[in-house]
């Protein structure tokens, strides 16, 4: 049976792992390659590396870091942050990334999804969406959560699927860094409307939050950062609890 995935996320700034609250107030959380190795040994199913400063500083994701990670670890990983062109995507995939996560660039240039999906296959293209609740709906935010596009997040995710995205990385900006649980309302709606896998992100604080995102909101994978970086929750404990709750997981 296809298992639900646990995905530690490593936010990268200047080659270090960092973690902030609501996209601000960054704390140092260690060397990304070392953390990547630790997570893969502890049972992570995939890894995501987001170069969070890339868009703001107009800096390209570090191909060198991707190359180092790819040599060290033997599970799939996604890289994102400031990727704007098919050429950049090709460079990262050739360096050993399995997927690229596209965020601000596809809002400005949605055709990039079609072009990249055509060139590398839908499986390599993750549409990352930062959503924030505004009155009765959720808006898409870009540039590391600093700019409201005014676009409806759910409609945008449907469009990314139609254009050829293979997966959605959905971050609730309201919940990100708060450890108050994933946004189950948003996830449930999105999962009922999309046919591609959805990774839930933003708000993981407890094991129960992760179980709820899957059991209640039908997420295909849960992504979290600080609870793993600071060892508040061990991946193996999380997976055992998920298995006990009847969720299919990969355990050794």
């Amino acid at each position, binding site marked *: *049976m*296809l*298992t*639900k*995935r646990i995905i530690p996320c490593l936010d990268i700034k200047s080659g270090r792992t960092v973690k902030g609250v609501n996209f601000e107030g960054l704390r140092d959380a260690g060397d990304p390659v070392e953390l990547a190795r630790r997570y*893969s040994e502890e049972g992570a*199913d995939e890894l995501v590396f987001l170069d969070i400063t890339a868009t703001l500083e107009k800096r390209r994701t570090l191909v060198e870091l991707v*190359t180092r990670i*790819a*040599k060290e670890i*033997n*599970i*799939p990983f996604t890289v994102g942050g400031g990727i704007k062109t098919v050429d950049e995507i090709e460079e990262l*995939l*050739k*360096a*050993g990334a*399995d997927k690229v996560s596209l965020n601000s660039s596809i809002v400005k240039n949605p055709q990039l999804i079609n072009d990249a999906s*055509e*060139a*590398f*296959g*839908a*499986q*390599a293209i993750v549409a990352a969406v930062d959503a924030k609740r505004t009155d009765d709906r959720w808006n898409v935010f870009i540039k590391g959560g600093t700019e409201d596009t005014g676009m409806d997040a759910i409609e945008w995710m449907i469009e990314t699927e139609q254009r050829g995205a*293979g*997966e959605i990385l959905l971050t609730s900006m309201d919940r990100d860094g708060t450890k108050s649980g994933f946004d189950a309302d948003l996830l449930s709606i999105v999962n009922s409307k*999309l*046919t*591609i*896998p959805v990774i839930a992100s933003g708000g993981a604080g407890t094991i129960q939050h992760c179980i709820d995102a899957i059991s209640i909101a039908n997420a*295909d*994978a849960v992504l979290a950062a600080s609870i793993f970086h600071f060892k508040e929750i061990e991946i193996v404990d999380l997976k055992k609890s998920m298995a006990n709750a009847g969720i299919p997981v*990969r355990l050794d």
Partner: protein
Amino acid sequence: MIALIKYRAGNIASVSNALERLGVDFYLAETANELDKADGVIFPGVGHAYSAMESLKEQGIAEWLKSTKKPVLGICVGMQLLFESSTEGDTEGLGVIPGKLLKFDASKEKVPHMGWNSIQKQAYHPLLKDINDEDFLYFVHSYYAPESDFSVATCDYITPFTAVVSKDNYFGVQFHPEKSGKLGAQILKNFVDYVYQS
């Protein structure tokens, strides 16, 4: 030595890294001539079946693969192209294994089939040495080879499909051994061991 086919549609970085971690001697081959000196061939692939097949033809590798007697391991799209055809882009494959690739029904479950899934062994095969029934491997694909007489292991997602295929000197795995942790590494090692024992 093991030749790793380098072509436009193949993602060789991950497989190269996996072989390096195993300490396997290998080289990259871009032409039929370069493949001639190989003891065994690994044929990786990601992305679209049609563009993969086109670039194999352009490099003159398609014909070589069809006629070789050396052990060949196709990975993911590399495995899919061993079959006769794929409904992806209406692509004609190498046709060294009977069968046609179909697309998963997205009205039933999420597509692509993405993540760790368990395999069920159908027959003894050297590729699966030290791999157990229900072991988890990493899959990412939207098209699948239906079960057939050539399936040595199957996986279940929406429908049972071929996870490992074998006919004559041609082997294929739908999952990504290079991304499947220790078990995946074991499968790559099993292939290399087979090449040198045969």
